[in-house]
């Protein structure tokens, strides 16, 4: 029983870190421009598709990872400039409609372009190591480490980078940031591109585990939204903790009930959070 529990804890942390990668992009975008990006799951999915294309043509998983990030970052920047920049300062509902519309367009584009049959990204590492009674794939550990590294890199960039300061200042006070000479419209574009690239990275990393299809974004985005709300909208650290917390709970719950039922746990956490601590679980209590 203990070994089962430990395996599930490892599983929970691994899927938590992938989820954290998607959720941090989402929360970063919300934090800085109050845009709830309903197309985030489709950026994740398109990232995975671009990844499959690059893997097929070059054979290199790592090239696919980098290439997908760059391509989707560019797509994200274009989306921001064309669809979201004109809506800045309007009712948040308009941006929800815009991004929801985009998600439908992107999903159906993928269906049209790549067809309904799921594709597979081969794992870059097929090795396994013994973990109690089972052989645990190295690749899962690699995903966790890479996700953590990307999130850590983002954190360092926000904390110490020149443009990191711009992003943090703009998140706190858009108007004053502009008055300090920070090019706010481009900071918004840049953040959207970074968020999109992070979604693409998780899409490629996740691809070998689930198979790539046009609807793969839906499940991920739902979980990412739960995480962002539980962690506190716009709160990066909160989202990361919430992602790991919820994934751990689900992993442990699936020992007791079927994995499909374990998903209920995240909704229970969501409802409890909204009832008792609507600003988020992992934010300091506002004074």
């Amino acid at each position, binding site marked *: 029983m203990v070994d089962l529990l430990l395996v599930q804890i490892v599983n929970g942390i691994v899927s938590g870190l992938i989820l954290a990668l998607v959720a941090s992009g989402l929360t970063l975008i919300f934090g800085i421009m109050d845009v709830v990006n309903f197309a985030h799951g489709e950026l994740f999915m398109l990232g995975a598709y671009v990844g499959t294309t690059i893997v097929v043509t070059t054979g290199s998983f790592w090239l696919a990872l980098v290439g997908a990030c760059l391509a989707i970052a560019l797509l994200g920047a274009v989306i921001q400039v064309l669809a979201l920049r004109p809506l800045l300062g309007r009712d948040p509902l308009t941006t929800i409609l815009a991004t929801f519309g985009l998600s439908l367009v992107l999903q159906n584009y993928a269906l049209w372009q790549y067809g309904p049959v799921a594709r597979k990204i081969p794992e870059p590492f097929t090795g396994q190591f013994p973990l109690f009674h089972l052989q645990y794939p190295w690749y899962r550990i690699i995903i966790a480490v890479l996700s953590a590294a990307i999130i850590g890199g983002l954190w360092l960039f926000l904390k110490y980078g*020149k443009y990191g*300061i*711009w992003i*943090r*200042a703009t998140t*706190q*006070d858009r*108007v*004053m*940031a*502009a*008055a*300090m*000479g*920070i*090019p*706010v*419209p481009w900071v918004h574009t840049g953040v959207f591109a970074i968020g999109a690239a992070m979604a693409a990275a998780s899409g490629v990393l996740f691809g070998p585990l689930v198979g790539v299809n046009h609807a793969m974004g839906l499940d991920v985005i739902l979980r990412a939204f739960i995480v962002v709300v539980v962690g506190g909208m716009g709160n990066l650290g909160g989202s990361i903790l919430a992602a790991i917390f919820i994934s751990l709970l689900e992993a442990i719950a699936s020992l007791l009930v079927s994995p499909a039922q374990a998903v209920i746990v995240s909704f229970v956490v969501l409802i409890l959070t909204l009832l008792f601590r609507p600003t988020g679980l992992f934010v300091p209590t506002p004074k």
Partner: protein
Amino acid sequence: MLTLTDVHAHYGKSHVLHGVSLHVGPGEVVAILGRNGVGKSTTLKTILGLVRASAGRVVFEGRDVTAAPAHRVARMGIGYVPEDRRIFRLLSVHENLRTGLDRPGVAPERRERLLEKVYRHFPVLRERRSQTGGTLSGGEQQMLAIARAMMLEPKIILLDEPTEGLMPRMVAQIREIIDVLRAEGVAILLVEQNVPLTLEVSERVYVMEKGTVRHEAPAAALRQDDAVIHQYLGI
């Protein structure tokens, strides 16, 4: 250096500025007096482009900046110290200053020199450099707001009610800072409710009423003749 010609501005449907015209010369300290809600703060925001002028022109150093985005106007050399200070509360004091320093074309030595200068003028900011902005007292936040604007090496600073809500000791300090800025040749456009202080530090005064400039006079003249002050400000 800075000229506003018949500037109008709206907040949604309400017409706030009804043709404001004013002028600030290089190194000059000019004040705008007026009761609450006559459009003094809006005038400053319109200069920077934070509020769009619906008619009229704002010209800074010979360039029409009426339609320019705020960040570009700021980089041309207009510092802004807003009424509510608007410190980046979650950034440290040092990071607050960096928001104005991290722009293209500022060499490391020049950054150091600028930082050194404001830390010399505001020793308390050096002491608190790694504290977050939100933990500073009101007076310290005001100093930080002014120091932050100085990071842009502005040719003019727009000061919106810098002494509002401050203790007398702090007010005296803000006064000193205005003198320092003047000595460095930075022009100031000051919006204040504190009439004695305003008349003391400024060279010229515009009096605003109902979204337009009603009166212009040298500060020295208003110090003598307070009929105007009485008429427009009710004191």
